């Protein structure tokens, strides 16, 4: 009897340890926050270009994570990308003229959604859409814009140089 009790104790300890390890790995190591049920509220925003934004990316105000990107889909009515956000419950005082932009954390970091507060007296409610959005910056477009503007600068400069010699 004592033998079986010892075995059961050992087994119980092992199983407990195993599940504790699993629980720790799931809750502490991953970036996911587990709330009980669906707390917080949803917002949507449409963007011309979402770049590398992915579901699960943080939504932040002044660097503080206040929510997560829930899903990204394509809206064929507006021909823009529609991003669903879930904002945590404590952050329910965001002015409804705030703007959202897709930003990059660090030089090689992942992309996140930054919200800059507006000055309205009324706040966002569940299901609202953020009106003012700024798309992700695509490096190729930036480079080509830079090159074109350089080329455009050079032409009048050459023209004026020729005028001067005449």
């Amino acid at each position, binding site marked *: 009897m004592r033998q079986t009790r010892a075995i*059961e104790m050992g*087994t119980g300890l*092992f*199983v407990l340890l*195993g*599940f504790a390890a*699993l629980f720790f*790995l799931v809750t502490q190591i*991953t970036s996911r926050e587990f709330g009980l049920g669906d707390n917080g509220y949803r917002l949507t925003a449409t963007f011309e270009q979402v770049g590398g934004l992915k579901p699960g990316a943080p939504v932040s105000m002044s660097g503080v994570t206040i929510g997560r990107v829930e899903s990204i889909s394509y809206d064929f009515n507006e021909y823009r990308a529609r991003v669903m956000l879930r904002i945590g419950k404590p952050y329910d005082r965001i002015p409804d003229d705030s703007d959202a932009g897709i930003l990059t954390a660090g030089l090689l970091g992942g992309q996140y959604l930054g919200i800059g507060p507006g000055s309205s007296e009324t706040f966002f409610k569940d299901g609202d859409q953020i009106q003012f959005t700024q798309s992700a910056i695509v490096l190729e477009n930036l480079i080509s814009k830079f090159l074109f503007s350089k080329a455009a600068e050079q032409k009048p400069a050459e023209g004026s140089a020729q005028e001067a010699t005449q």
Partner: protein
Amino acid sequence: MAAPVIHELVASVRESLRALGAYAIFAVRLARETPRALWRFGLVVEQVHNTGALSLVIIMLSGLFVGMVLGLQGFDLLERFGSEESLGSVAALGLLKELGPVITALLFAGRAGTALASELGLMRATDQLAAMEMMAVDPVRRVVMPRFLGGVISMPLLAAIFSLIGLFGAQLVGVQFMGVDSGQFWSQMRGAVELDDVMEGVLKSAVFGVACSLVAVYEGYHSVPTAEGVGRATTRTVVISSVSVLLIDYMLTAVML
């Protein structure tokens, strides 16, 4: 002159095919017995103790050292790119997705698989299994099933413990010895690891648990009832389990990546 060689080759291919078939039939039989065996949970608990709880020390010790060496090697490599803060994510992903499940399975095959195979083999050699059959007790139901299920239950838990201890080993070397910033270590890790990564590790270790336990009980149950046969069964258990774990690991990784 080549005829005997070809003949042997054909015979060995046939034998492998037969073994594969026998494994499949045995696996189906075990799967069908599973619900009934879970009913007699006391027997399974005893085997969880044998395969899981008694493997704990070797798993924890190995996990610690694997994590520590991962911390050391990872630090050395990442320092060359000036990104030693990402040591946390490297260690966590490496341990959760690959090293945890695979090394645990290999150790499990060596520690618990051999114990299962030799125990069953000795039962076979000393006619205990035949005696059970004579008393109308199905040895698969009474002896094999609890051992199989005990292994299947233990393996994911052992792998989780291995990964966790390994992570602390990596933290110990990276943060305490090498001076990686502790906050960076953990926050980079949290940023990089998704729930899917943890689940991938759990799924892998569950599959390895089934594979290792199946090989161990099959080889033990079907061992030649002599001293040499038992020895051979344990050897085959380790060899087949290890190779199949590595093989399955590649396939699972290719599917889930």
